[in-house]
């Protein structure tokens, strides 16, 4: 259960991680939903290990929801299908498909394509990802990450439909068996449908840089601490000068988060999470700054 001070940004902040969806779109200029909310975040994961002669394989299905108490129209769900195969204790490959259908981002003014006035902006994301993990030595590990996908918006915002692909390395320093540092960088290219329709004056194509550093450590036998800091830079690449929102524009996002996990019983663990994000959008005609703080208490139960 989370408290958030900004309902429109909550899901984007929660999904911002190296294995998450850091480029999930948001609507900084939504006319509603910027207030406080309580969000229930249920997670259900079913996992099956399959040992075989080529190593070990695991299949996972995970459903993750965000259920908003004050702004229920923002409630949404995401489904993850993941397969991991470890060829040896040093080498593994992970494949993941992530889908988040019909996610409400907020409301914005539209004045083209037969739509006028305030309209709900909704997006469905379908993204496939692959990660190759290779342990180089006792202390060092490298991961190569790539993903590709599509984001489809509802009809009034169809020019925002985006094809995206991402590539990036992660380096993991295993300081000890109980502490590690993870450094990661992603380069992402997003190509919006609006680049083919200059008459709409909206082309959200971008180049996205995402850098992350995380420190994770077991403080005690059953108490773990995770500290993350992310920096995200989106450079909008449109050449449409009438696109006042994106032309010569960019976006900076700073996100810090901390999480404590404590295993209480054999089957139960508790989490305490704090996140703070600072987003600023700058273009020739626009400057928008937004903040998001999330604080949450959670329970994990293993059936």
């Amino acid at each position, binding site marked *: 259960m989370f408290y958030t001070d900004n309902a429109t940004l909550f899901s984007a902040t929660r999904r911002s991680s190296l*294995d998450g969806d850091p480029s999930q779109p948001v609507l900084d200029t939504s006319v509603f939903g910027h207030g406080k909310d309580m969000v229930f975040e249920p997670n*259900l994961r*079913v*996992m099956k290990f399959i*040992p075989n002669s080529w*190593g*070990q394989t*695991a299949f*996972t299905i995970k459903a993750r929801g965000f259920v908003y108490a004050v702004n229920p129209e923002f409630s949404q769900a995401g489904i993850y299908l*993941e397969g*991991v195969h*470890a060829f040896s*204790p*040093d080498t*593994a490959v*992970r494949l993941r498909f992530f889908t988040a259908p019909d996610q409400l981002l907020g409301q914005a003014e539209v004045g083209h394509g037969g739509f006028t006035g305030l309209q709900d902006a909704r997006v469905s994301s379908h993204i496939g990802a692959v990660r190759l*993990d290779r*342990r180089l030595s006792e202390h060092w*590990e490298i991961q190569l990450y790539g993903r590709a996908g599509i984001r489809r918006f509802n009809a009034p915002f169809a020019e925002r439909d985006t094809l995206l692909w991402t590539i990036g390395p992660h380096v*993991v320093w*295993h300081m*000890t*068996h*109980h*502490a*590690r540092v993870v450094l990661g960088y992603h380069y992402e290219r997003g190509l919006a449908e609006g680049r083919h329709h200059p008459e709409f004056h909206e082309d959200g194509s971008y180049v996205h840089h995402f850098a992350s550093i995380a420190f*994770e*450590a*077991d403080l*005690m*036998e*059953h*108490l*773990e601490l995770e500290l993350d800091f992310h920096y995200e830079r989106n450079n909008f690449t449109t050449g449409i000068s009438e696109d006042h929102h994106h032309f010569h524009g960019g976006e900076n996002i700073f996100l810090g988060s901390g999480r404590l*996990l*404590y*295993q*209480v*019983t*054999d*089957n139960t*663990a508790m*989490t305490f999470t704090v996140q703070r994000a600072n987003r600023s959008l700058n273009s020739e005609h626009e400057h928008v700054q937004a903040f998001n703080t999330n604080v949450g208490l959670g329970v*994990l139960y*293993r*059936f």
Partner: protein
Amino acid sequence: MIRAVSILSLCSLLAACHSTPGISPQPVQDLTRLASIKSIYVEDLGKEKDADLIEGSNLVRDQISAELARSGRFSVVQSPQEADAVLAGLAGFEKWYHGMEGFYGLEGDLDTHFLGVGHFRLIDSKTNQAIWTHEYERGFLRPTQSITSRVADQVVDKLLSDAALAAKGTAPRGLSDESAPRQLTP
């Protein structure tokens, strides 16, 4: 209505998924025979027919051996032939994760939680019959106690306490006639 049915179905499915690794032994406490046991051999606790492979069995085995030897009540011997009884079963832990990170031990113990596993049988070396059994009881973990210590401590504490009761010639507390484990005739 549909929502209620969905939630009930999901709860039933999750309850069905609630599994205990290995095969739980039928409760047995032959206190008369237990009173006469002086030496114990602790078998490999990582293998059991039809059970999933679990981790940490060697650690549990070592800790049980050390604690039994320290107790002074039992001596721990190095072969089943030297022992009055053999402690057998399945013990250790299963890992569970809040991410996919801990998979295959590739990234150490981080993102990992531990579920204790312990099914123990104390088997008479002469008759090859179970004298005493113990099932690990899940519960609250002490912040500094490892899961292997918890499994080992629990079985040793129970064995010593039952051995003390056996020496006094009394039945274990909390066992009614109906719930009492099967008493074997020596």
